[in-house]
């Protein structure tokens, strides 16, 4: 009772008087998280269609996924591309953010804008552009083409993250190391990098996830043997609701959660 009449904010409004705000907020949070979470139990349904809660629990749709050669191939492609994208985009983005941060030219702002272009241009335009380029170069349906395109999409995210990490880092530490005889590369690797590792790791995870979840570019430039899992899922969704997709979705959500938790844990460590 006392909580209801206690002031809730600086304006002396009571918790009771703005109960509606809490209810709306709760409903919106429900709206945000429930759709993805509800797919998880449904994927363990034992029947031929999805139900909640499942009457018979089973892992048959996981079996269907793991036994399908096409899905396994697609998974292999997606994971390969995502790992390679992470390995390519993270160092590229880190170097670029470091270069911009240290050099501090007046025109650095414009380079920053160019580096974030892939975030601004509509993905569909990037996708048909890449398709056009790869068609000329004969790179359609190739792993390397997909890795380059996904890295291009992921680099801006890495740059933004590392740039914000560098902002709260004291560059003088690197100066000290260099005045004591360390080369710039050595000073960066042994002094700066360990201290911005949170941003680097988050950037790498985000690059991985960007590639793994990317649909539109993959729709245009991946196919045949090298179709990605998202491309296959998208095509399957157009036709019918295949419960196998629920099991794959659950696995993808699990990967996202795992990466989010990893990022959070490293974030805690920083404090």
């Amino acid at each position: 009772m006392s909580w209801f009449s206690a002031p809730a904010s600086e304006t002396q409004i009571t918790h009771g008087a703005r109960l509606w705000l809490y209810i709306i907020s709760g409903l919106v949070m429900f709206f945000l998280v429930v759709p993805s979470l509800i797919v998880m139990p449904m994927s363990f349904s034992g029947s031929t269609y999805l139900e909640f809660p499942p009457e018979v629990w089973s892992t048959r749709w996981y079996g269907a996924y793991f036994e399908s050669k096409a899905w396994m191939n697609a998974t292999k492609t997606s994971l390969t591309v995502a790992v390679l994208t992470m390995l390519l985009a993270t160092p590229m983005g880190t170097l670029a953010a470091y270069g911009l941060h240290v050099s501090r030219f007046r025109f650095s702002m414009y380079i920053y804008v160019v580096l974030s272009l892939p975030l601004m241009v509509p993905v569909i335009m990037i996708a048909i552009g890449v398709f056009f380029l790869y068609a000329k170069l004969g790179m359609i349906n190739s792993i390397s083409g997909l890795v380059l395109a996904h890295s291009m999409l992921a680099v801006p995210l890495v740059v933004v993250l590392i740039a914000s990490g560098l902002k709260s880092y004291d560059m003088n530490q690197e100066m000290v190391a260099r005045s004591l005889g360390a080369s710039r590369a050595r000073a960066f690797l042994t002094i700066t990098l360990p201290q911005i590792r949170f941003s680097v790791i988050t950037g790498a995870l985000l690059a991985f996830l960007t590639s793994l979840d990317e649909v539109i570019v993959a729709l245009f430039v991946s196919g045949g043997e090298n179709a990605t899992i998202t491309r296959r899922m998208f095509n399957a969704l157009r036709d019918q609701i295949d419960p196998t997709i629920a099991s794959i979705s659950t696995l993808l959500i699990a990967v996202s959660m795992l990466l989010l938790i990893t990022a959070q844990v490293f974030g805690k460590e920083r404090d």
Partner: protein
Amino acid sequence: MTAVTQETMSKELNADGLASDETRERWMVLGLCGPALFLIGIVMVVPVAWLFWLSAVGADGTLSMENYERLWQSKSYARIFLTTFQVAFVTTGICMLIGYPLTYMMAQLPRRAANIAMICVLLPFWTSLLVRTYAWLVLLQRKGLVNTWLIDAGIIDTPLRLVHNFTGNIIGMSQIMLPFLILPLYASMRAIDQDFVKAAANLGAGPFNAFWRVFLPLSLPGLFAGMLLVFVLSLGFFVTPVVLGGGRIIMVAMRIEKSISLYSNWGAASALAVVLLIMTLACLAVAAKLLKLDKSQSSSGGTEG
């Protein structure tokens, strides 16, 4: 006397040398941007520039504006643009209406509790777009969970058509876009100096007045920036309208895809893409201006408070 001038001169000379050394080094460090710029240049800027060129070339291979004229004259394109703007407006409106109260509450929670609430925002943000779209498809279909619940609760007798139409597309897109509104709005609300609200209350403003006349105006730049972001992303949306719209909703991005994969009509597709790009960049420019305004406002507020 001469010794002194010599000394200062040599110092100056030395300073020149150091300055040029420093500039050279800054240029070398800037070179670290090279690989990333090269990648973005080759894989994105060149192809997009190419699309600009293709959009300005007519069927006979000469420079012409016919691709754009067709966009302007054809009724079917007008309908596509109308649908696209309708979807973007409604999605933005819904995101604003349901995102503002949640963000407002989150901004007043203690940090720890706010971080937990933030997980509810970040979880969908990190979840694959395709997975979330699929989840909505499962929830909203004829025999889906939402219809089953509504019938069990006695609210409706026959299942509603919730998917493969405008409604389904809007429900899905609102949920997918909501984090893009909440994240910038939350940052800007946290930057508002609570002393302003306290002062308003002190001077006799009731809770409603303190919110309406003090807090709300201060949060508007962040809100508009978030809304513009949602609007821009909605304009170019592809995956969700294809799956949840079920062919009844045709947006610009879907038309572009169709022009390429079905008709291989590069002129039409690239003209559409260029128009989409220009609309997007215009919105982003406005959003950037608003955020800058927000920053200068909150920093000046800080010194006054």
